[in-house]
């Protein structure tokens, strides 16, 4: 028990160190540039304490729960040898973790507002909601497909750069044809899809898969899943914008 406690305390020190830069930046700008006192100091201090505790617990749980289960499942799928179920799992993981992602829901709503302001869709609440939901499912679908492609790449051992550069070329070509209003959102949607829980799980899946397939290097073949997951939404969102127009 004391060993665990000691470990947690050490981890907490690490979290404080991780958060120190933000605190310094905020204090510097508040006092020296904007020259204003901090509002509501008690609440801010409590907030900082929560952030430190939260980060500590998260990292602890990550190493105890998310990483092991991700890797053990990857190994189990590799041993089972069923490509069908592995692909089903990869797709569900990508789709399921993205469709409920709060950042994506927020972005989809803003995109609907833009589309309504640009007269691409009606400005009724229903039209906007329909557009936002369509966009959300489009992105979730694209992330599911991205993880599937990424998993197939690990199995086949294709070099990641050809697929990514190919994707870039598609993005560039589509940029020329997509409506101007959607481009900023499409580019942003690549970054917002990968949440704090998805990233460790997907990374563990990739590394675990690459380590249990003979001839694959976990460093070269294991990473890269996140890269696909942040590339395909750009393509799909622009396609969505072109279709709805």
């Amino acid at each position: 028990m004391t060993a665990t406690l000691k470990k947690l305390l050490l981890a907490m020190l690490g979290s404080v160190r991780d958060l120190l830069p933000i605190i310094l930046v905020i204090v510097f700008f508040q006092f020296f540039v904007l020259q204003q006192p901090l509002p509501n100091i008690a609440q801010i201090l409590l907030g900082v304490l929560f952030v430190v505790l939260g980060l500590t617990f998260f990292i602890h749980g990550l190493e105890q729960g998310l990483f092991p289960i991700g890797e053990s499942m990857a190994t189990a799928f590799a041993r089972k040898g069923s490509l069908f179920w592995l692909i089903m799992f990869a797709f569900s993981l990508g789709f399921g973790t993205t469709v409920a992602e709060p950042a994506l829901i927020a972005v989809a709503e803003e995109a609907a507002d833009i589309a309504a302001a640009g007269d691409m869709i009606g400005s009724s609440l229903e039209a906007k909601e329909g557009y936002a939901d369509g966009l959300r499912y489009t992105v979730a679908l694209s992330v599911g497909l991205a993880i599937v492609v990424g998993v197939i790449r690990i199995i086949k051992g294709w070099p990641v750069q050809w697929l990514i550069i190919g994707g870039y070329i598609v993005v560039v070509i589509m940029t020329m044809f997509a409506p101007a209003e959607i481009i900023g959102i499409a580019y942003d949607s690549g970054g917002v899809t990968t949440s704090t829980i998805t990233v460790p799980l997907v990374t563990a899946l990739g590394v675990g898969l690459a380590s249990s397939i003979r001839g694959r290097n976990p460093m070269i073949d294991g990473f890269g899943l996140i890269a696909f997951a942040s590339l395909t939404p750009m393509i799909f969102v622009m396609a969505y914008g072109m279709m709805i127009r």
Partner: protein
Amino acid sequence: MSILAEFFAVTLETVTDVLPIAAIIFGFQFAVLRQVPANLGEILAGFAWVLLGLSLFLLGLKWCLFPLGRVMAGQLTDPSFIMAGLEAHETIADIQWIDYYWVYIFAFLIGFSTTIAEPALIAVAIKANDVSGGAIGIWGLRISVALGVAVGISLGCYRIVVGDPIHWYIITGYVIVVIQTSFAPKLIIPLAYDSGGVTTSTVTVPLVAALGLGLSETVPGRNPLIDGFGLIAFASLFPIMSVMAYAQLSAAKAKLDHKRYLQQKEQDAA
């Protein structure tokens, strides 16, 4: 609202966020793989820690960082703040992109510091360090990603101020990534591509979005609906370059050290 009620509200939000993931994982574990993991208790406890940690983390951010960050982004982009740095006889029409220098500095520093605290990046750095047998340092990766985000966001702010179309920047970035890919050490390439998507999660996105919207609302001639977006794209493109650059620099340094070592040996022999 009392602290406890707010805590439960945020926890509920996190649970609904984690629930589909847990359902998929354990569904496949039991229905398809049909095995119980040896350390099931420990893994479930780990999930509980993740839930608790993420809830506390989000709640803390909601209380201290986000309101402060939004207010600061608003104040720094406020025309009256910008005007204070101008000469007395100048008017709004005389504001040039350089007068927003505090915005660029803020963007750089906040991009760097939020990325250092990003839990998803810490996770990937731990894994990369583990898999590479220590060749890729946790801090080396985190700092180079954070530098990439910092440069990306300040450049993105500059773009909003001058009003250039976003795609030229992104396409140029792609070209640089492609060129770097052909020179960078092979081991780093997948990790570098990954670090683009990893950087923008819980901490960075809300603050950066506030900065972009604040800027596009106050800079004359910008439309927040169109120009307010795009900062996240910058923040996920530049780390790819900075991580490859980090690997290239490390490789170059190792080569140089090796050369020096050989020269030293030759001299010793002579």
